[in-house]
């Protein structure tokens, strides 16, 4: 099966430091793929390489038949790829409303942009009550909602999510995971989810990819990783 996102033989890194080695990942359309692994496994670099924030030194990255290596970072969102970076990336000097509008600024369809804004506020109730608050006035959970909501403003086909559960209350994590599942089931959204929180990631994922030291060490159906104790012990440490 060919995925909407296909990485083959991808190497990348920061200057002389190589981080990703020969990475092959295939993400089928309308699925959630969880990328798991310890700190320093290269998970964040994987997403940054996909976005073009880190230069690909070898291999190929195809999204919906298009080679991403030749796409400038600022054009990605127009192809349908939204990247929520690690540390959430809320522009703390801007208000909630401005952050959200920023996510849809490039769009031509103003009417649908307004609908997307309403949907985000409907889903993330706390944000609707803090529209005029600056980003730095929000709690960690609210910031994560804002970052995810802002990505959804672009009506993406592929969502790259970096550690959405980091320092979040379990309730908020569960809410965000439920939203991802809902978007996959209703709109066919494809998600590449980088997570330290293995249990919550595998609870919604279709596929699991385990990385270690910049390489993909195992790719399995999520339920196999979840249910097979030997696999869990070997690769995920629990």
């Amino acid at each position, binding site marked *: 099966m060919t995925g909407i996102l296909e990485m083959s033989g991808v190497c990348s890194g920061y200057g002389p430091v190589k981080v990703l080695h020969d990475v092959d990942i295939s993400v089928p359309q309308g699925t959630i793929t969880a990328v798991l692994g310890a700190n320093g496994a290269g998970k964040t670099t994987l997403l940054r390489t996909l*976005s073009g*924030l880190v230069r690909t030194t070898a291999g190929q990255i195809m999204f919906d038949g298009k080679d991403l290596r030749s796409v400038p*970072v*600022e*054009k*990605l*969102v*127009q192809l349908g790829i*939204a*990247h929520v*970076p690690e540390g959430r*990336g*809320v*522009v*703390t*000097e*801007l208000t909630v409303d*401005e952050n959200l*509008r*920023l*996510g849809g*600024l*490039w769009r031509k369809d103003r009417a649908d942009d307004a609908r997307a804004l309403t949907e985000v506020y409907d889903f993330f109730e706390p944000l609707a009550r803090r529209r005029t608050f600056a980003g730095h006035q929000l709690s960690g959970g609210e910031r994560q909602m804002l970052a995810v909501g*802002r990505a959804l403003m*672009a009506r993406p086909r592929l969502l790259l999510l970096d550690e959405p559960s980091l320092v979040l209350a379990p309730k908020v994590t569960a809410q965000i995971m439920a939203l991802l599942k809902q978007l996959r089931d209703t709109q066919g959204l494809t998600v590449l989810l980088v997570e330290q929180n293995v249990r919550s990631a595998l609870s919604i994922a279709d596929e699991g990819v385990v990385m270690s030291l910049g390489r993909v060490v195992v790719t399995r159906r999520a339920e196999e990783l979840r249910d097979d104790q030997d696999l869990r012990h070997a690769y995920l440490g629990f």
Partner: protein
Amino acid sequence: MDRFIFLTVDGLSKGAVYAAFALSLVLIWRAARIVNFSQGAIAVAAAYMAYSVTMHTGGNYWLGFGAAIVGGLVLGVVVERTTMRFVGHERPLDSVIVALGVVLIIQAVLGFIYGNEFLPAAAPFSRTSMRIGGYAVWSPYDLYVYAAVAVLVSFLAYLFAKTKLGLRLRASAFAPEVSRLLGVNVGRMTTLGWALAAAAGALAAMLVLPTELGLHPNAMDLVFVTAFTGAVLGGLDSPQGAVIGGLAVGLILNYVTGYAHNPNLAQPAVLAVLLVVLLVRPGGLFSSATARQV
């Protein structure tokens, strides 16, 4: 009392120009995290363009004025795209040295074309003070300066607060990487920031030169130092701070030199203010962000 009113009125007029110039420095600081030491030279170059256009149109000040603003926009783009864009941010000193190189080049070219003598800078309105209730107050030219700076400030406030372009400009300044991921062409926003800043600087030069000795390649050097002090006083991150800082520095300078009856105190007074601000509140009066390393 007469003297106090005179010094205050005159200080506010000078301060308005410093405010405009300080604003131009803040615009570049926000767009590119660079203190643009070439701002004065760029502004003078734009004023020379105005001089040439005015000369060739039979003394039309307003055509020259328009040329200065357009010239400022263009020079801002040229300086950013040809030099500053290629300066890394790893060492803050790099951009300072490159900017000083730009200063030397611009001043040499201006000296080569126009000579190093002072050329007259015309004022479009009378500079004679009007008298109200026996006190000498603003001249028509002072009022023109206030109006021009007010238009600049309102335009920038509207642009940044109310437009989509302003939202892009602010987002790019605060979070370049996130902005790129959201589809904002940050490189273009940086160039635009330079263009706006250089045009604001050109406006300041057009306003201040008729009140000083006139056009000279170095004519904005002291204005730069003074306005920079205003910008630091207000906080390099804060446009409101730049306006208030510029006005404050104009007033402080006028009181010091006026009451001491010694115009030579202007430069030491500016440096003293700069020193005190950097020692007491390096982030400036209006900086919301934590202290940044300049």
